[in-house]
C-alpha cells in the first residue's frame, strides 16, 4: 500500500494540519502577549519619569545613579518587604520636597526618627508592600485588609486631618505612651479614655473593669464581627465605631453603655484609638523606652487605692461607681452619668416619692435594668448599701451645714 496515497485518502489530514496551524499561531500570539505585557510594567514609567526629573533638577550625573528595576526595603524584624520605593523613588532624596507624588521627599522630621531601613513603609502607612502595581499596593481591595491609610481614605471619612487614620499604626508601637508627638487624634482619644474613665467598665491593655467587653484586642476583630443592621450606607468597621461612640444605643439598643455626646472629631479619635489596639507582637526594640505595659500614673494609682480602701469601697467593688459618685465617701464616678449618691436618701424621695429602702428593693426605670442584669445585689448587700448611703447622706448634711456656717 502506498504510504502517501494512503494519507491522501484520509480526509482529516488536511483539516488537522489547518487546526494545528491555528493552535500553533494561538500559542505563539498568547506567549508573545505575555512577553509584551511583562516588558513594560507600570513602575517602569514612573522610574523613567523620576530619572527625567532628577536630570532636570540635579543634572545627568545624578540621574545615572537612580537605580532601575524593582526596589524594596526588607525589614526582617517586622517581616516586611515593602516595594513602595519602586515608584516612590524620592523618599530619601534631598531637594524633592515640593516634587509631585510619587517622587516627593518624605517629611524629614518623622523619617529621621523612623528610618526607612528599620520601619519600612507599610508599618506606618498601611497598604500592601508586596505589590508592584498601584492598585494592589494602595487598595482598598478585597484580598488585602489593610489599605493605604492616606488622604484619599481620610477624605472619604471626612477627617479634619486627612492623614489621621495613619495614627492608628503609630499607636502599634506607641500604645503605652501617654502622649505621642504628632499623633493628635490618638492623643485626644487617650485623653478621653482617661477623663471619662472608660476603664471603669472596660479592660484596656489588660487593665480595667469587667462590665463592658475587654477592648485590649479590639482592633484585631474582623469587620463582620460587628452588627451593621442599623447603619445606613457604607458598612465598615470604622463607620461602626464612629457611629457607636456617638450614640451606642442607636446601634446596640440593649447596651448599657451611656451616650457621652461625643463630637464627630472625638468619636473619630476614639475609633482610631480602639482600632489601633491590635493583637500583634512588636519586637521590644520598636517600643519607645522598651515600655511594654500600660502603667497607671502615681495619682491614678493613689486614687484607686484610696477608693478601694476607704469607706466607699463597697461601691467600687459592686461597680456602682461606674455611673455614680459618692462624694462624701471619696468615690469619684468614672463616667459621671448618674446622680451623686451622697444625696440619694433625699434624692430618691423627691424623684420617685418613695423611701430609699423601698426603691432599692423594688427599683424602677434604669436602676431596675441595671440591678437585674449587670449588678446583682443580695438582700443583705442591699441593706449594707442603704446603711452606707445613709451614712454618706449624714456626712453630706454636715458638709452643707459647715459650708453654710462658713458663709455666715
Amino acid at each position, binding site marked *: *500500500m502506498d*504510504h*502517501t496515497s*494512503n*494519507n491522501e485518502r*484520509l480526509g*482529516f*489530514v488536511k483539516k*488537522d*494540519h489547518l*487546526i*494545528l496551524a491555528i*493552535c*500553533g499561531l*494561538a*500559542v505563539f500570539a*498568547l*506567549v508573545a*502577549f*505575555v512577553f509584551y505585557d*511583562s516588558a513594560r510594567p507600570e513602575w517602569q514609567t514612573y522610574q523613567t519619569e523620576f530619572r527625567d526629573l532628577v536630570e532636570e533638577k540635579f543634572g545627568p550625573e545624578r540621574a545615572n545613579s537612580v537605580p532601575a528595576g*524593582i526596589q*524594596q526595603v526588607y525589614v526582617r524584624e517586622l*517581616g516586611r*518587604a515593602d*516595594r513602595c520605593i519602586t515608584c516612590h523613588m524620592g523618599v530619601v532624596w534631598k531637594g524633592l520636597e515640593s516634587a509631585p507624588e510619587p517622587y516627593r521627599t518624605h517629611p524629614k522630621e518623622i523619617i529621621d526618627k523612623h528610618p526607612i531601613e528599620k520601619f519600612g513603609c507599610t508599618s506606618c502607612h498601611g497598604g500592601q508592600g*508586596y*505589590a*508592584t*502595581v498601584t492598585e*494592589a499596593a494602595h487598595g*482598598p481591595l478585597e*484580598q*488585602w*485588609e*489593610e*489599605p493605604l*491609610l492616606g488622604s484619599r*481614605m481620610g477624605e472619604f*471619612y471626612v477627617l479634619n486631618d486627612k492623614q489621621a*487614620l495613619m495614627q492608628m499604626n503609630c499607636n502599634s508601637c506607641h500604645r503605652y505612651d501617654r502622649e505621642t508627638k504628632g499623633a493628635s487624634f490618638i492623643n485626644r482619644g487617650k485623653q478621653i479614655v482617661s477623663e471619662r474613665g472608660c476603664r471603669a467598665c472596660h479592660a484596656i491593655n489588660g487593665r480595667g473593669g469587667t462590665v463592658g467587653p475587654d477592648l485590649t484586642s479590639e482592633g*484585631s476583630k*474582623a*469587620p*463582620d464581627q*460587628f452588627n*451593621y443592621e442599623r447603619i445606613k450606607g457604607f*458598612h*465598615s*468597621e*470604622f463607620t*461602626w465605631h464612629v457611629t457607636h461612640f456617638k450614640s451606642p444605643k442607636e446601634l446596640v439598643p440593649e447596651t448599657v453603655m451611656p451616650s457621652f455626646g461625643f463630637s464627630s472629631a472625638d468619636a473619630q479619635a476614639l475609633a482610631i484609638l480602639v*482600632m489601633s489596639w491590635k493583637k500583634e507582637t512588636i519586637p521590644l526594640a520598636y517600643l519607645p523606652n522598651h515600655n511594654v505595659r500600660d502603667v497607671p500614673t502615681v495619682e491614678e494609682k493613689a486614687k484607686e487605692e484610696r477608693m478601694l480602701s476607704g469607706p466607699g469601697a463597697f461601691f467600687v467593688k459592686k461597680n456602682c461607681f461606674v455611673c455614680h459618685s459618692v462624694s462624701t465617701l471619696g468615690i469619684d464616678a468614672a463616667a459621671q452619668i448618674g446622680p451623686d449618691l451622697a444625696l440619694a436618701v433625699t434624692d430618691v424621695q423627691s424623684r420617685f416619692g418613695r423611701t430609699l429602702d423601698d426603691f432599692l428593693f423594688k427599683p424602677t426605670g434604669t436602676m431596675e435594668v441595671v440591678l437585674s442584669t449587670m449588678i446583682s445585689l443580695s438582700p443583705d448587700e442591699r441593706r449594707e448599701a442603704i446603711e452606707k448611703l445613709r451614712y454618706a447622706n449624714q456626712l453630706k448634711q454636715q458638709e452643707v451645714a459647715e459650708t453654710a456656717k462658713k458663709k455666715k
Partner: protein
Amino acid sequence: MNVTASLRSLYRKLTWTWNPQSDKEAGDAIVKNLLLHWFPNKITKGSLSWGYSFYLGTISFVLLVILVVTGVILMFLYVPSVERAYATVKDIEFTVSFGWVLRAMHRIAAHLMVATVFLHMVRVFLTGAYKNGSSVGAARPLNWIVGIVLLILTLLLSFTGYLLPWDQLAYWAITVGTNIASAAPLVGKSLRFFLLGGSEIDQNALIRFYVLHVVFLPGLLFLLFSYHMWRVRKDGGLAIVDHEALQQTTEQAAPVKAKTYSLLGITGQTSVHVRTAVVDEEKNSVPSAPNLARRVWLVTLLTFAVVLALSLVFRAPLESPANPSVTPNPAKAPWYFLWLQEIVTITTVSIGSFTVNGAFVGGVLLPGVLIILALWWPFRDRTGVNAVGVWFAPERRWQNRVFIAICLLIIIFTFVGTFMRGPYWTLFWPWESWPEMPVKF
C-alpha cells in the same frame, strides 16, 4: 556532498520519525522514538475520531504535563513554612519574572484537570468502555478501577495544593475539608489528626500537604497513569476497536503472488497461491506515526492555548494571610467538593430529638457509597459485546440514564454550592446580588 545536503540529511535523521515517508518508516518510528513508543503501530479511524473519545484522556495528560512543568518551577520559588509561604506566593505574583502567569496556569490547569478527568470517566461509562469486548487478554474493568483511583488522586492533588498559599481561602477550605473527614465513624478523629499531623492546622499540616502534593501523590499518579496507558494497549486499544471488529466483514482480495524461493541452495520451491480476506479493520487503519502523533500535538497545543488564555483572563487570587480567628463568610470547600458540602447542609436536619449527622452523610457515607458502586459496577454490568465501545448502547439504556442522573445531580449541587451560596450559607438566585460584606475601612 555540499553543506546544504548534509544539513538536510542531518535534519532528516533527527525528524524522520515525525514524518515517515513509507509504511515501513511509520512502523519503525513507533519502535525507535521514545515519545511514540506507547502508540500502536496502526490506529483505527474510529479511535482517532473526535466524537468518540473527545480526547479527554489526552487533554487530562497534557494538563498534567503543564502542572508538572509549572509546578516544578514553582517549587524553586515557594517555601512551605507557615511564616514564609504566603510571602513567597506574593513574591511569585509580584516580583518573579512570569511568576504570576506560571501560578495562574498551574491553578487553571488544576481546575481543568479535575473537570476533564471527571468528563473522561463520564465518557468511558456512557460508551461502555469499561467492558471487555472480544479481544483476548483484555481486563478493562481493572483499568476502570485504576481510572477511578486516578480521579480520586486528581482530587487529592488539587485539594493538597489548595492549602499551600496559606491564605484565608486555603486555611478555611482545609478546615472545612478536614472537619468533614473527622465525621468518619470510629476513625474520624484519628483521621483528622493524621491528615493534619496534629489537632490544629499549622506547620505540621502544611509540610504534610506539601510533601503529599509534590512527591507522594504525583509519584503514585505517574505509576498508576503508566499502568493505565499500558492496560489500554493490553486491552486492545480503545473500546471502539472492539465495536468495529464486530462490524467487520471479510471480502475476497486479490490472490497474493506466488513466490519462488530457495533455501541455502539445497532446496527450492514455489509457494502456494493464497486467497486472503482483507478485513475492514485493516482498511480503516492508518499508521499512528504521523496521524495519531499529529492529533496529540494538536490537542497539546490547543490545551496549552486554552490554559494560557484562561490564565490571562482569570488571575489566581490570593486572599489575606491565614487567620484562624477570622472565619470568612461563607467558608467554602474547593469547588469540586461543594456538591458534598451542599449535601452536608441539606442532610444536617433534626427530626424531633433525632439529629442526622450531615457531615457523615455528605462527607463519608455518600462519597463512600458512590466510589464502591463505581468500582463494583463493571462486574455487575452483564450486557453483551454489542454494548462495548458505542455511545448510548440501547442495551445499557437504564444504567446510562441512572448514571447521567447522578452526574447531573453532582453538577447541579456543585453549581448551587459555588454560585448560589452566599454569606451565612444563604441561598441566592444567580441573578440576585449577594449583600456587600463589611470591610475594615
